[in-house]
């Protein structure tokens, strides 16, 4: 392998003349530095291409330890630089040949970045997930075993009732989730529904009904939390996370069509 290096981009921010936090390290332990151009600053670190080239990445992205470590390191940098001012996070493993390419990017797309940064300045993202509370298994009603109904028939009937009940619950819960999303969006500057997480990702058994992200003015965070509390009710459980760097509200319209917003329902 060669000693070739690349420039890994974490986030683009407004250049407020604030120095990069000292000692900040990113993926692969690389020191984070800033590339300033035209009122913007790109936060980057140098990465070895024998680890961050396309080939090696294909392999390492399938290594869950590596992926988890790298995602955390990336997120850590994004978080840290967003403390100093509005920042637009860039997707994991965006690697340039060198600093010149990054400067060129800031030149070419400076206005779009500034638009995005203006939109999120002074605002934070909050995540709200709604889960359908688990339904208890349908108990066999007393006296159901009348008239010699076979265990099989009784079973099938119970099963059917249970499934119908579940379906009804689901519909009701989905409608509630919709209302919750609408209420939160009305309070927030903007709201976005992301695809719901599988139980394996959420770590919870209950069906996720809503995976929402809300852009909220910084000083209204607590108020937002209270709004969420006010929406809690039977049948649906709400989980609030944040504040986050506004990951969900810093999308650029990509001329090359690489924008990843297709499955969001606004």
């Amino acid at each position, binding site marked *: 392998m060669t000693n070739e290096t690349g420039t890994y981009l974490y986030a683009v921010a407004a250049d407020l003349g604030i120095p990069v936090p000292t000692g900040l390290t990113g993926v692969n332990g690389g020191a984070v530095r800033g590339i300033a151009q035209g009122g913007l600053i790109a936060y980057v670190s140098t990465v070895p291409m024998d680890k961050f080239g396309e080939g090696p990445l294909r392999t390492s992205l*399938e290594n869950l330890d590596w992926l*988890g470590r790298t995602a955390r390191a990336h997120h850590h940098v994004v978080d840290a630089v967003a403390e100093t001012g509005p920042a637009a996070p860039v997707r994991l493993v965006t690697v340039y040949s060198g600093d010149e390419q990054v400067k060129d990017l800031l030149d070419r797309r400076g206005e779009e970045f500034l638009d995005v940064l203006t939109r999120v300045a002074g605002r934070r993202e909050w995540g709200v997930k709604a889960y359908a509370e688990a339904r208890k298994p349908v108990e066999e009603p007393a006296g159901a075993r009348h008239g010699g109904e076979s265990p099989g028939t009784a079973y099938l009937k119970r099963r059917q009732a249970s499934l119908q009940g579940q379906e009804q619950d689901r519909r009701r819960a989905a409608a509630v989730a919709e209302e919750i999303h609408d209420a939160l969006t009305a309070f927030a500057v903007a709201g976005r529904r992301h695809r719901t997480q599988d139980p394996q990702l959420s770590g919870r058994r209950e069906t996720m009904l809503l995976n929402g992200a809300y852009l909220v003015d910084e000083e209204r965070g607590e108020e937002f939390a209270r709004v969420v509390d006010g929406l809690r009710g039977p049948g649906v459980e709400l*989980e609030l996370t944040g*504040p986050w760097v506004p990951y969900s509200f810093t999308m650029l319209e990509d001329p090359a069509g690489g924008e990843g917003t297709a499955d969001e329902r606004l």
Partner: protein
Amino acid sequence: MSDPTYSGVPARRASSSSLSRPQSANLGDILERVLDRGIVIAGDIRVNLLDIELLTIKLRLIIASVDTAREMGIDWWEHDPWLSGDRRRLVEENRSLKRRLAVLEDRHPTLEGRAEPGERIEVDRWSEEDRHTGRPRRDADFHAREADEDDYDE
């Protein structure tokens, strides 16, 4: 803004507490954000994993190591969980019902091929006979199978 400071979750899962970032910044949420959101820049960059490639990676990832992925909770890309949850449940349901049917047919060959709705009375009659002729095992058997079924619901 270093750590999300508020979480409405009353009780964290035990595994979450082992993560270095406290509260709600669990790995799943972070992965979802860094992989799925944020700015995507195409064009002249050196390495750019576009959506399709990422999806492939994610899919291969889950196939290669389902257990590890499950442990870490990485599976959201595979399909819409809203649908998949249902589909999985229906598949299990179907499988379980087929097994039950096979058992019934085994024990009572004349039932075979009688799928007409009107024929269901046959099952009842058989079952009643069965009960009167003293084969209590069947009831127990059903309950045992229901316990089985519960496992699948999880």
